[in-house]
């Protein structure tokens, strides 16, 4: 009797666990059933407010679908995402980055979006942008928006400091001279620029200006000498005080709180034009003007980049509903009006026109910038290989060696190359 009782007890406990783990897994459209989907993205509070408004409208139009959302800044977002995916708890709809899409698609984590239960309406998006979300001919991420690299600066500060503003054909030396002017005229209280040497994205533009690329057919396409030359340029700016000191630079993590420009410790810097939302001036406490990158070769090097992508988790049990949400966010004119430029220039041409007509403030400035720089942009290179995210992180980490003067620039560049090679090949 006792043995039976013991077995029963264990069986009961195991039973509870099993029931708790089990769940319905039909992947069929659930027309009338109440469905909750999860949507995670990266961004700031400003973008969150706008996104929530668009989602409210979606929920109104689809009363059987409830959308739960959560957001974080870029690095934290991806750390959390990896953990969730590994644990089998990935969000249904997720925001994906161009740099990671191959990594995740190759690992069979993302659902195919041009076929199957997660099929999307891609008719409004140009082929050029769609190819940025395609891996081996299949679509795994759809870009809701495009963006491009931009230089932004506090033009009032520059006027006060008598720094020469960017103009057509300006060079990296012009940039340095103007930045130096700002630092000098404020006795270093406001630096000309946030130190941008550790950010692989801006290094890429500089490389492309010389006809090179980050990757070519899945392999690193630059050398330690390129990296050293880039870091020598930015290191000289740090030594002369034109850019932020090491202690400030090392904190830069993509958040407003640690961004020297937002904190009024620097008067300008590089970024993506999708970063300008209605409250950008308010957050930074002043207005900015936008300009294309400087260049020494006459080649601009910037490209039309999928600002981000929406993807659907391969393991989602609610793919049709997830697809519905993405279709709405990308193709619906009303949603477009609400979202505006909060994620960059809408990829859907029709939505883009309606959005453009209604813009004011920073998004309008970004929109106008896209209009002027658009014709000069090159198409985006194919999504970078697996390990590119690790290489990007190494670039910033090892740049700390340079700014804290822990090793020579040459040594740091070689150390980075070794790390990056290992990341890409392993």
């Amino acid at each position, binding site marked *: 009797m006792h043995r039976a009782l013991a077995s029963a007890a*264990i069986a009961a*406990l195991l039973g509870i*666990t099993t029931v708790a783990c089990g769940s319905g897994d039909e992947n069929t459209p659930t027309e009338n059933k109440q469905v909750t989907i999860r949507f995670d993205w990266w961004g700031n509070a400003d973008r969150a407010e706008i996104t929530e408004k668009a989602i409210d409208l979606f929920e109104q139009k689809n009363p059987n679908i409830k959308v739960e959302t959560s957001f974080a800044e870029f690095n934290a977002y991806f750390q959390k995402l*990896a953990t969730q995916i590994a644990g089998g708890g990935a969000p249904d709809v997720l925001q994906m980055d161009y740099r990671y899409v191959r990594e995740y698609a190759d690992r*069979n984590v993302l659902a195919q979006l041009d076929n199957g239960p997660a099929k999307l309406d891609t008719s409004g998006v140009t082929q050029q942008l769609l190819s940025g979300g395609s891996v081996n001919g299949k679509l795994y991420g759809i870009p809701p928006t495009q963006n491009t690299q931009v230089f932004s600066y506090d033009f009032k500060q520059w006027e006060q400091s008598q720094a020469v503003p960017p103009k057509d054909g300006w060079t990296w030396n012009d940039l340095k001279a103007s930045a130096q002017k700002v630092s000098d005229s404020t006795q270093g209280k406001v630096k000309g620029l946030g130190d941008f040497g550790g950010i692989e994205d801006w290094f890429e533009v500089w490389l492309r200006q010389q006809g090179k690329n980050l990757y070519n057919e899945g392999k690193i396409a630059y050398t330690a000498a390129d990296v050293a030359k880039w870091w020598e340029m930015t290191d000289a700016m740090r030594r002369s005080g034109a850019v932020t000191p090491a*202690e400030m630079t090392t904190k830069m993590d993509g958040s407003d709180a640690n961004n020297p420009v937002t904190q009024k410790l620097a008067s300008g810097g590089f970024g993506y034009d999708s970063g300008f939302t209605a409250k950008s001036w308010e957050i930074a406490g002043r207005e900015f003007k936008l300009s294309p990158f400087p260049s020494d070769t006459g080649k601009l090097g910037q490209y039309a980049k999928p600002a981000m992508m929406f993807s659907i988790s391969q393991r989602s049990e609610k793919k049709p509903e997830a697809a519905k949400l993405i279709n709405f966010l990308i193709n619906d004119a009303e949603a477009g009006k609400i979202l505006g430029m909060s994620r960059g220039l809408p990829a859907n041409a029709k939505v883009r026109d309606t959005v453009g007509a209604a813009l004011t403030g920073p998004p309008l400035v970004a929109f106008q910038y896209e209009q002027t720089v658009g014709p000069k942009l090159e198409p985006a290179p194919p999504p970078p290989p697996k390990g590119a995210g*690790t290489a990007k992180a190494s670039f910033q980490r090892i740049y700390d060696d340079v700014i*804290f003067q822990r090793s020579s620039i040459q040594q740091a560049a070689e150390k980075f190359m070794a790390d990056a090679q290992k990341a890409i090949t392993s």
Partner: protein
Amino acid sequence: MKERPGWAYLFLSPWVLGVLLLTLGPMAASLYLSFTDYDLFSTPNWIGLGNYRDLFTDDERFFTSVWVTVKYVLISTPLKLAAALAVAVLLNRASKAQGFYRSAFYAPSLLGASVAVALAWRVIFDKWAVNPDTSILVLVALAVWQFGAPMVIFLAGLQQVPKELYDASSVDGAGPWRTFRSVTLPMLSPVIFFNLVLETIHAFQAFTGAFVISGGRGGPVDSTLFYTLYLYQKGFTEFRMGYASAMAWVLVLVVALITALLFGTSRRWVFYAGEER
């Protein structure tokens, strides 16, 4: 009385299931994964000792993380224990406010492991946290500040010291320092040993503070790259979970070895009452 093992199993089952499902199971899984190229998402492939070989022959940052962690353990553990003992001695007198002070000094231990406190710490010690020469000290300070748990254990130990020993030493004319050295410390040595082992193991596993204060990067210049933080980076940002599992097992072995060493030395300095010397 009649034995009723059935009921025993019933009452034991929550604990047994917890150990099997939440501790031993995952440990066995991670031991297996440490011999594979598991990348979080795909099916793992067996690669034998490959991860362990790479760790020791092809990973400079692994040694950096070991050095950072050893530094942290060696500085923070003695300081924390000293602080805990000092405060425990001060609090070990009868006074009305004693209860209040004990709670007040214990409070940081309840809060200390939390993200919120680490965030506050980052703001307060910003100037030091961004300097590669001092950033580790910020984390040491955070650890030392959480001396509450060993302090409570010391307090309990202090109250076990027989009163007549103190009476005897005062009759012999010993001053407070002499009494502390010749009575309190030897009588307390089992408790000191217990706390030392526990806090050393804790220090090797420190993670939250370093993660939050360095924004998950272990910077500047890898100066706060704790072993566990590097393990986390390998597993969750580089997707090398097999490699991270190998790191976890190296840590388990090292901590086991150090604990064994501590036990080895204990025979020379730990005194148990009633023991013959």
